[in-house]
């Protein structure tokens, strides 16, 4: 699990068997007919200073996972250990202090910033509330934040709607950083932005990670963007992590059939790599069905499935002895490299 290379090996964040189930109701009296397993037994750990990418398509649960980590949703099962302490068994006052260390940057900057407050208020309020600043140094601190994200000082008196999407995203990042978090969860922070602005924000995030020694989780569906900022990447499908590896290793040698199909489907910006997309295109669509979950969630669509797959116990295993490349497919590593 963890490699001892002489440095501090205790992970900053550990997630164990995390679950989030929603109940599906039906009938006159809203009987529960089953559960929708949005997050279904997810485990991983992150070390200080690293960036973990979470990728997957709609319904995979990556956003729900991110929200559980920062406390916006309560897990149905499993544990979240921050600096070794279990967040789910903490009392409120303790939790409040820890919450400031786990912050989130949202996808839709327009709806996550209060339209009735100007930027100074938006940035100052959290710091004042948590006692990280007082009336004397608040201006200084807010200006420092603006500087950090590359915004001009005249932004302070203006309102969110006066800014462009990219600028609002910078404000959102500044707000998240204002409480000096140790862990930053970015939930699709660039998906709603134009290509050229995406690059600006991605570079900003990358620089901030280095400057502030941030640990972050980057959730995205744009694989190229996630690759750019992440050290390791986890691929999720229907609530489970199916593969977890270093970014370059993952894209060079994907082992899970879903990962392979996913990466094959991404159109590369190089006309010379044009192939008949039909090669890797998988049929069908992902569906979350309520009901007992057994076996591999990708089973219905997998081109390599076998009978064992529908009943196998799902867990992430190293692809080979001692490897840090984890995969949940029971067939991984058995066939030759594709």
């Amino acid at each position, binding site marked *: 699990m963890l490699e001892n290379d002489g440095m501090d090996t205790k992970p900053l964040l550990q997630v164990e068997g995390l679950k989030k189930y929603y109940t599906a*109701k*039906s*009938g*006159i009296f809203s009987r529960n007919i089953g559960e929708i397993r949005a997050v279904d037994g997810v485990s991983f750990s992150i070390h200080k200073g690293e960036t973990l990418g979470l990728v997957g398509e709609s319904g995979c649960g990556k956003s729900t996972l991110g929200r559980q980590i920062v406390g916006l949703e309560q897990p149905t099962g499993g544990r979240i250990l921050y600096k070794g302490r279990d967040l789910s068994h903490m009392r409120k006052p303790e939790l409040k202090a820890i919450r400031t260390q786990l912050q989130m940057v949202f996808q839709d900057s327009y709806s996550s910033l209060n339209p009735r407050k100007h930027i100074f208020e938006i940035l100052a309020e959290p710091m004042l509330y948590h006692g990280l600043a007082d009336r004397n140094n608040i201006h200084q601190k807010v200006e420092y934040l603006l500087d950090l994200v590359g915004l001009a000082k005249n932004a302070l008196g203006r309102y969110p709607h006066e800014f462009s999407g990219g600028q609002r995203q910078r404000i959102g990042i500044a707000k998240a950083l204002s409480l000096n978090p140790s862990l930053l969860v970015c939930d699709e922070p660039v998906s709603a932005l134009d290509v050229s602005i995406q690059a600006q924000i991605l570079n900003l995030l990358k620089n901030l990670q280095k400057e502030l020694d941030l640990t972050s989780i980057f959730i995205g569906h744009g694989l190229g963007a996630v690759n750019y900022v992440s050290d390791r990447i986890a691929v999720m499908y229907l609530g489970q992590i199916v593969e977890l590896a270093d970014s370059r290793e993952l894209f060079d040698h994907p082992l899970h059939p879903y990962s392979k199909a996913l990466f094959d489907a991404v159109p590369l910006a190089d006309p010379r790599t044009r192939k008949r997309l039909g090669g890797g295109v998988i049929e069908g669509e992902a569906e979350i069905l309520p009901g007992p979950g057994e076996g591999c969630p990708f089973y219905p669509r997998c081109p390599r499935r076998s009978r064992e797959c529908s009943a196998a116990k799902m867990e992430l295993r190293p692809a080979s002895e001692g490897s840090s490349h984890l995969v949940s497919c029971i067939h991984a590593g058995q066939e030759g490299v594709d």
Partner: protein
Amino acid sequence: MTKYIIKRLLIALPTLIGITIIDYAIMCFAGSPLEMMQGARISQAAVAAKEAALGLDKPFYIQYIMWLGQLLQGNMGFSIKSYEAVSSMIGSHLGPTLLLMGVSLIVSLIMSVPAGIYSAIHQYSKGDYAVVTASFFGSSIPGFFLSLLLVYIFNVTLGILPSGGMVTLGTSGGAGDVAAHMVMPVLVLSVSMAGTNIRYIRSAVLEILQQDYLRTARAKGIGRRSVIYKHALRNALVPIVTVIGMQIPVLFGGAVIVEQLFSWPGLGLMTMSAILNRDYPVIMGVCLLSAVVVLLANLVTDIVYAVVNPAIQYD
């Protein structure tokens, strides 16, 4: 869908009972009917005796339970004033109210639906401004003012329409006679309803005209008529049904003033006198009927929504 209907009906019962309890309580606080009957020549003893006879000396919740008990046996009680059975009173006055309501609703729809749709399709045109202005007048003119104005014009000055009542005094009526008596009250009611409806339908249709599926329909080259009259209008049914659903309870109670002014022998008139006389049983009877009508109208509207728009589903 059936489950949904059953669920709604089941919820309706406690709602009804709740409504009647509140109605009864309000009435009791408003005062005793005996206050209306008192005069200088009536002794306290007589009043007390009357009170006991009517059961008014008991606490209000006992009175309510007695009323409820009687109701469940099908007996709505007797008017304190006229000693007539409440159910037959309601029965005889219901007809005229339904007639007035029904015709006003239809007339107002005939006025407002085409106008609202036309207005939305030709937004910012002269026709649109004319319709919108007219609708403002319609909803702003007070009912009593319009009534008196119409009476003045058509009865006093021109003498072509009767000023009140349902049938000409002394005659047995006939469809034409009733129709002539109905013209003005219907006009008053439907003009004010149309005023509000037009604006609502207009804005609903405007919103529909912005929808992407209309753009797709145009891209298919099926022709402008089809795009508007098939694709847009079918979606406009939902707001129109809403409007109808909203109007029914309003009509039920709101005809009171118009019925007074035109002496139309409907529920409104009857209810007014009952209220002035503190005639409990009659008031409760009308309240109950009113509550049932509103609940039913809401339920039927919701069902019709699901029929008209398949994207609306109830589990």
